[in-house]
């Protein structure tokens, strides 16, 4: 039969961790990454009114990052992403490595994402650039972010925090395979 409905999707974590790309499964977008014990560990950093909060590296955790909470994942992407979608982060340490899963669903509530630069020295928001998620989808944010962060990395004036005067470090996109040398160095650094 042509045009049969899709009843289900299967995503073996080990398999999809190797391709490193985001997948769309009906309304959900998902990504799975795997790290070796020797890799610099991915750490979720969230921006809250009290300041930046780093999630502890528990062997097993499931964190709902509420919609509109700026977050980044150290060594995976910087600067911060803020989205109208609740983002679910699952960390599972297994004997062969640590698996990281990110999940988010589109809905009528999900309209806009933004790339947000928060000064790592004083915690002030420096810049925010909006993205039309309702039109382009949750996954298309990542190439948009890469373009935006490259423009930021190329501008010393934009990197200077207006509040504390210190320089924001270089940023890096979600896909490490696309890193420029300065982005690869930044990915290792912070």
């Amino acid at each position, binding site marked *: 039969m042509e045009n049969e409905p899709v009843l*289900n999707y299967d*995503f073996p974590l080990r398999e999809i961790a190797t391709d490193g790309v985001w997948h769309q*499964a009906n309304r959900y977008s998902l990504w799975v990454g795997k790290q070796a014990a020797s890799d610099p560990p991915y750490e979720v950093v969230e921006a809250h009114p009290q300041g930046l909060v780093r999630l502890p590296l528990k062997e*097993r955790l*499931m964190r709902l990052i509420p919609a509109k909470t700026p977050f980044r994942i150290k060594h995976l992407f910087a600067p911060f992403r803020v989205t109208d979608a609740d983002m679910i982060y699952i960390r599972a*340490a*297994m004997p062969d490595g640590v698996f990281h899963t990110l999940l988010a669903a589109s809905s009528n509530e999900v309209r806009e994402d933004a790339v947000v630069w928060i000064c*790592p020295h004083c915690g002030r928001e420096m810049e925010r650039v909006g993205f039309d998620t309702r039109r382009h989808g949750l996954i298309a944010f990542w190439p948009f972010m890469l373009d935006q962060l490259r423009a930021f990395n190329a501008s010393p004036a934009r990197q200077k925090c207006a509040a504390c005067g210190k320089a924001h470090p270089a940023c890096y996109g979600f896909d490490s395979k696309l890193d420029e040398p300065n982005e690869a160095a930044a990915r290792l650094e912070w």
Partner: protein
Amino acid sequence: MFAEVTVDKPIEKVIEDWDFLADTLVGKFTMFRTVGQNIYGIRRRCISEEGGVIDPRKGKLSGALEIGPQGVIHVRHDPMCMHITTAGTPHRVAHSFGYWHINDMDEIYLPLPNPEGEPLGHYLVIMQTPTGQEGDSYAWYCEQCTTMLFERRHRTGEFGMQGLFKCSELAVREYNADPKLRTCPECGHLNPMGYCWNSAKDTPDERAARAIW
């Protein structure tokens, strides 16, 4: 290595309920709990890649089924594999719940094996929070010819999770009360009774049905 300045307090002092799998919190997800844009269920089960998924009360869960254009198909809920049942697909797990659940929202299942040295792993169920007209149906199809026999719907988008399990219970009791409802109008087959997800509420007839299908 460069380190950004973070809050100098334990995370619990800044973010409430930050880890759904924490021992102090996981019990709140035994059934289903709506948090923001999703509904979460977390089942503590014995999960291993060699032995599969074993529910302490119901035994080994291996009979996940869905209905599509080809009829009833077997699907797998394997450890370390995320299975997504898309919105609108009738699905059930044999011997676990004796009706076909039709959800207007996608459902995600992810069995995570027992952490090292622990007797139970985490079986995660995640689905979007329905809104407006979106809801859940409990349905029965003829086991011989897949003709739909009976359906009851819960307006979850309007009423929330409140009453969802009661609705399934009422649907099961209504379906079981009248053999005509279980008799296929197409092929005449008398189908077995239904039963609820919560085995503790089984009547003797429902317990017998749970053993059959």
